[in-house]
């Protein structure tokens, strides 16, 4: 392995013109819901969920035993996730620790790592420039895993350090470890190459990690391109819910995990666990578990201090979600076996377990199909009024809680995108169960300027099956029972279509820079 070491110098190039959305002020601020609201949903929602389960779990409800069993598992999973969501979001204010008094910092040196693999220079340049302009004593390093002279020239032109690896073992984690071994500052910041930091990034985060037991301070991962295309917008909806009430709540439980970018570490914390783990595709998640096991604390700073690009197209989103799902699901056994305190372990399990949600969608979609094709139904003949009486309050509260705690950020588009990509979770689960090793795939930046039906093929296939079944069912009879199941199918088809539709529309190009230097990092979902 050879290393090229270019000491950072003062930036020489003028700042980029403000055409890049990452340079705009973010119009979003993460917040936890008010205590009263959060408590209301936590208490009333939990009661509603328990009442529903109480109704569902009675022996007289058992219809087809297998389907009933499936439904119960799915509902237990969802109720658990929902209740945990309510409790976590309520914890955001209830359990919030008094912030550690920020210690006076006399401008400690911070190594700022910007790992790149094959991203276009136009995406990376604003990040380097902004990083170099941060207040404090940043020593910015461009960590080039792609061995591109273009990157070396870029670093030189911006006046930042440049570290190159000849091989890319361990992907991003290996790249950072490689840099860790060659730098010395007591604090290390990691920025994805598309995340442009705010001038106060270090000034705001470093005081949090000055405390000797704090391993890292994580900040939100803001998608600056959310207004530019529907996939990024929907993905941002999901992100906003996580980095809003959930992350604040997790922080209250001391279980906020590192998200791989926009984060500042203590070097000694990283070194105490041997740096970033390279065997996981979600090295950040795995690292967080190790650090917490080792007694380190994490801090979440609910302030947007860097803006980056979310997935610009469906392939990018699928690629990202596959990586996250595989990484988090593969970490499940590790979390179960870990020596984390109970509360933290539950929080980590909930985060990982979320990536099983796709299975619940599959089960929900299957029920009306099986009912129409075979007549089998999970719940024994009960009046719809009975079901609705117990289900609707729970469902309504779950939606209301999402709407209220998410402050409108989590919308139908976010939900339908998740629903339409149910298969990502299923595929990731199967891959993890088969022990198939994952491969780190860089989330594509820039997006494709063409339709991507292949990225939503499973959703389209689902729609075809659902519609075919509905037609078949209606052709046989038009009884209220059939109509009810067809209505369920219509519901699923609508949500599937809403989620898949952005892939079937020709996207608008994001920016001239991105288009000019577009890299065809099409996600190969299968390979991932």
């Amino acid at each position, binding site marked *: 392995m050879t290393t090229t070491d270019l000491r950072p110098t003062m930036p020489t190039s003028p700042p980029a013109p403000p055409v890049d959305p990452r340079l705009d002020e973010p119009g979003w601020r993460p917040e936890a819901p008010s205590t009263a609201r959060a408590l209301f949903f936590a208490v009333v929602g939990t009661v509603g969920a328990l009442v529903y389960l109480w109704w569902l779990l009675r022996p007289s409800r058992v219809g087809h035993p297998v389907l009933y069993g499936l439904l119960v598992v799915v509902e237990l999973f969802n109720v658990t996730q929902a209740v945990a969501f309510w409790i976590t979001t309520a914890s955001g204010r209830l359990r919030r620790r008094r912030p550690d008094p920020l210690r006076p910092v006399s401008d400690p040196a911070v190594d700022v790592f910007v790992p790149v693999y094959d991203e276009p220079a136009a995406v990376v340049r604003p990040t380097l420039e902004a990083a170099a302009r941060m207040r404090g004593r940043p020593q910015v390093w461009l960590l080039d895993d792609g061995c591109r002279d273009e990157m070396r020239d870029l670093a030189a032109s911006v006046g930042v350090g440049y570290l190159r690896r000849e091989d890319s073992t361990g992907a991003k984690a290996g790249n950072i470890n490689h840099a860790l071994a060659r730098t010395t500052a007591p604090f290390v910041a990691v920025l994805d190459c598309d995340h442009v930091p705010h001038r106060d990034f270090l000034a705001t985060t470093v005081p949090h990690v000055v405390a000797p037991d704090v391993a890292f301070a994580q900040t939100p991962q803001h998608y600056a391109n959310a207004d530019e295309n529907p996939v990024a917008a929907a993905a941002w909806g999901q992100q906003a819910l996580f980095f809003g009430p959930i992350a604040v709540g997790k922080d209250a439980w001391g279980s906020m995990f590192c998200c791989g970018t926009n984060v500042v570490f203590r070097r000694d914390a990283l070194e105490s666990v041997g740096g970033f783990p390279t065997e996981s595709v979600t090295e950040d998640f795995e690292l967080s578990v190790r650090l917490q096991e080792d007694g380190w604390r994490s801090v979440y700073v609910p302030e947007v201090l860097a803006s980056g690009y979310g997935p610009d197209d469906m392939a990018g989103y699928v690629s990202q979600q596959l990586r996250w799902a595989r990484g988090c699901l593969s970490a499940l056994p590790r979390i179960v076996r870990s020596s984390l305190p109970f509360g933290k372990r539950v929080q980590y399990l909930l985060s990982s377990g979320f990536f099983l949600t796709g299975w619940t969608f599959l089960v929900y979609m299957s029920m009306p199909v099986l009912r129409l094709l075979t007549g089998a139904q999970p719940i024994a003949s009960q009046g719809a009024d009975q079901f609705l009486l117990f289900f609707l309050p729970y469902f309504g509260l779950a*939606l209301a809680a999402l*709407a209220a705690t998410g402050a409108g950020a989590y919308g139908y*588009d976010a*939900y*339908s995108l998740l629903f339409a990509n149910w298969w990502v979770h299923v595929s990731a689960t199967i891959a993890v169960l088969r022990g198939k090793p994952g491969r780190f795939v860089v989330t594509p930046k820039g997006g494709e300027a063409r339709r991507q039906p292949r990225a939503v093929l499973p959703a389209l296939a689902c729609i075809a099956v659902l519609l075919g079944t509905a037609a078949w069912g209606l052709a046989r009879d038009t009884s209220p029972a059939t*109509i*009810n199941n067809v209505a369920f199918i*219509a*519901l699923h088809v609508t*949500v599937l279509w809403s989620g898949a539709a952005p892939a079937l529309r020709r996207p608008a190009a994001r920016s001239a820079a991105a288009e000019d230097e577009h890299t065809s990092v099409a996600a190969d979902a299968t390979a991932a």
Partner: protein
Amino acid sequence: MVSVASTDGGLRVGRRAATPEADRDARGAGARQQLGVAGAQWTAGVGNLVFALVAARVLAPGEFAELGAFLSGYVLLHLPAAGIGAGAALSPAGLSQQRRRLGIGGLAIGALLAAASPVLARTFDMPLPVVLALAAAAPGAGLLGLERGSRFGTGGHRRIAAGLVTEPAGRLVIGVVAAVLLGSVGAAVAVTAAGYLSLLVTSGLPGRAAATTSAIAETAVAHPGRTATTITFGLFAVLQQQDLLVAKARLGDDAAGAFAMISTAGGAVAFATATIPLALLPLAGRSRQADRLAVGLTAAIGAAATAVAFAAGQPLLATLFGDGFEAAAAPFPAYVGAMGLLGLGRVLAARRCAAGQHRHVVLATVATVVLHLGLLGMLGTAPGGIVVATLTATATGAAVLALPPAAVARRARRIREALLAWAPARDVGAVAAFTAVAAAVRLVSVRGLWVDEAITVNQAWLPFGEMLDQLRVTDVHPPLHHATVWALVRVLGDAEWVVRLPSVVAGALLVPAAYALGRELYGRRTGLVAALFVTVAPFLVWYSQEARMYALFVLFTTVAFWAQVRAIRHGGRGAWVTWALATAAMLWTQWFGVIPLFAALALFVAAALRRGLPRAERRRILLGAVLASAAVAVLVAPLVPFGLEQLEGYAGRRGGAATTAAPAQAGAAASGIAQGISVYAVGANAIWAVLGYHSDEAMTSLAALWPLLLLVGLGALGRGRSRATSALLLSIALPTVLFLLAGTVKRDLFELRYFAFVVPLLLVLAARTVTRVFPRARTQAVAAGLAALLLVGALVDQQLNGANPRRYDFEGALAEVTAEAGPDDVILYEPDYLGDVVAYYAPGVDARPIAARRSVDDDARTWVVATTRVVDERATAGRVGQALAELEQGGRRVVGRTEVPNVRVWELSR
């Protein structure tokens, strides 16, 4: 006073009138002329009536009918004379030339009639000589109008009076004798001859006086408004007659006959005032006194005639036309008023024509005639409707003509500006179109009255005080709607469309109200989509076609909510006053108005207490709310004793006092309400709110679509929480929950019609969903159109599907009974609250509750009428079964059975 030809073509009041004494003289002379000519006109009217009455006695019925047909044709021939006469009165210039033209034209028409007389005689079943007499009258018709008009223009009032009196005198003297001798032919010839005699007297024998008149007329310069005046008065003649033609074309024989009575008697008022504008034309605009006299005289005649018609309409009609036309008596005063207004319109038109504002007059008259035609097209299915059309048209015409053109233009501009301030021009057009469609849709009702409506009609026929007393003791509603129907019934009778008119109007006005609300809350597109939805929303259409208070209640509540939003957002006295008035009206219409009032107060508090509101704004809202609420309290205070008495009465009934149980849950079977509050009841109300009432099967299938509601919930995710939506949701959810809670105590309270005011709010919310989900105008239009189509489909099913449990075809069921029932036959009905509806649809038939079956004569043919879906289905079925069994045991047998939606009829006879 003398009149001389003026250089501007009109006739100028003489200079001698300039002094006070001369002015007094002129006033006196003008009054004498007006009264003298009018007196002659009235004398002529009475004379013609006497001739008709004598002829009716002298001639055989068939011959009298022939004479009637001849007289119709005679009147038709003289229709243009009204216009010609008015034109000549304004400006008699070029008299001889006009005589020539009219003479030639009249001869041509006469020749045509004579040539076509064999065909006409066969077609109208008249003797050939009668048709020829009509043809002979043709040359004189136009000339008579011209001569009378020119006499008015040249001041020959005595000759006019003489000519007017000569015609009936001639008819009476010659006509009666000729009728005795020659029958209808003689009478017709005499009428024609009397016309010529009148022409001769009016124009004068060739001599000095006639020459003077001719000389004056020939030297006068034609007034520029003469043609316009001719057209205007011709149009007034059309306005006076076209309702009769529509009645003949659209009504059945009986109804057309009834309207003919109204028209004949009411037309006397127009006849009585016909000469007043003609006498005014030469003087109008130059003598204020003459103007005032003409207007005052016409108004006094119209008002007096209307008062007489109100006070003694029925005996008057009975005297004139005999018994059997009682139904025509109700709209008679309104028609007399309409004819009075028509007379007034003519005077006002004469004034404006003489003042040179003829273009304005022609436009206004044409618009009035067109409006009349349009209204006749919409309402001309019953005599009352035709009367409303005529009254509306004549009142509008008179109002427009009363204003100077500049004022009309100014007001039109102000209205336009106000409308444009309220909405863009294209929206005004669209909302007007939606409103017109809504009115049409609501007017076209295919169902007869049901029980509650019949109760309303029954109450409306009581004297006002007695009606209020009955409402106090037996009813549970405030009196505004009942009072409205009471007044309408007095004016227009109790036809279905009349008693439903307040609901129809309220339902149509809900369209602009929904637009205003949607626009105020979200913007014009949402307003338009909301207006479209309200136009065809089945539930709203249903109650806009019901003679109950729900449509008014919904309108007042919607207006109150709109005003409240404006008051909170912008303030302003108008908004607060509108809120207070609409809220008070809401409470005067329905006691359940306290629920939206409660929601409104909650909204005021929420708006005032919201975070970040400047203190001054908070104070403004709170102060406004307190003052407006106080105003509502004052406005509603008189209602409190009434309400307390109703409450007492209700408690007494609940306590076991024997009264007839009022049906409250018609058609509720599919809702599950009958079994108590349940999810189904909630679902049924939700379906009714959006898609209206449908068969049980359809309701079950629709209820099975509940999973799609989850989509609504998901779709609402992340939509944000605008204040407008929060206010809407509060105003929908709070009342709904309160009614739901009330339903757990008294189950039938959770019934959508009691909180129907949430429906427009829901539709505004739906409209907002459309405009939010589909931001582009084109996709918005497509989505809104598809949603409206869905509503139209639901509307059609609701209106036409006989399986709709809310449809009660008492009209159909009782039509057959009424057609067959004899004087000794009996209707037995069950349950006993069907009494009012049976009385409405079978007014002449002896009807009794089924419990009184033992008092029925054994030989009487009996019909048992029952409805089963109102209240206590099982008990009703049991009582009907028992009654049928008893009647059969008594020797009767069932000989016929009829089943129409929700009503069954058994016919039994020995």
